[in-house]
């Protein structure tokens, strides 16, 4: 039983490492700030939570796993908030999205106004 838990935790941690590698690849490859946010932050959150879940399986029930549970909750709350704040600051500075149909039709005139300046 112990060996099964150990192998399962190693498998889950390696899956999380591969997911975080994909997040870094998206941060390297995508052409626009919104696409980089879409690729990087969500995938990074998922990968970190997966790795910490594997660490909980490895350490069993102890104070260490309780602290890791707190860490999972903090990542789940705080990292999307940071992503939203960065996207909001880019939007307030007038950065247009690269794909034109990603702009809301009510805001189209505002973006044209910003582009002329």
């Amino acid at each position, binding site marked *: 039983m112990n060996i099964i838990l150990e192998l399962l935790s190693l498998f889950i941690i390696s899956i999380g490492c591969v997911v975080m590698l994909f997040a870094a690849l998206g941060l*390297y490859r995508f052409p626009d700030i919104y696409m980089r946010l879409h690729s*990087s932050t969500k995938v990074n*959150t998922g990968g970190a939570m997966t790795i910490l879940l594997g*660490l909980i399986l490895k350490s069993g029930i102890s104070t260490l796993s309780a602290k890791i549970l707190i860490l999972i909750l*903090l990542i789940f709350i705080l990292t999307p*908030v*940071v*992503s939203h*704040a*960065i996207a909001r600051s880019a939007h307030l500075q007038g950065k247009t999205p690269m794909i034109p149909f990603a702009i809301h039709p009510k805001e189209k005139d505002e973006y044209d106004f910003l582009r002329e300046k």
Partner: protein
Amino acid sequence: MMIFVYVLLFVALFSSYRLVVGPTIQNRLVALSSITVIIMVILALYSIHYNNPFFLDVSIVFLLLDFIGMIAFTKYLGREEIK
């Protein structure tokens, strides 16, 4: 366990490319936040590997400091061009 630490260090180095050559400040902030999450996971891996709860406290404080810094920086950036 240590091979995961090396893989994650490679990932952090790979995403620090965007920190160096990112065209605007927002790209650099995305890269910095991503590197922070990766280093936090590395600290948790160390803490389980050496069975030492000290690194986990460092990791939680690191995440909270990253959150405060990012919020302050984006407040400052968003205020700049709005009238």
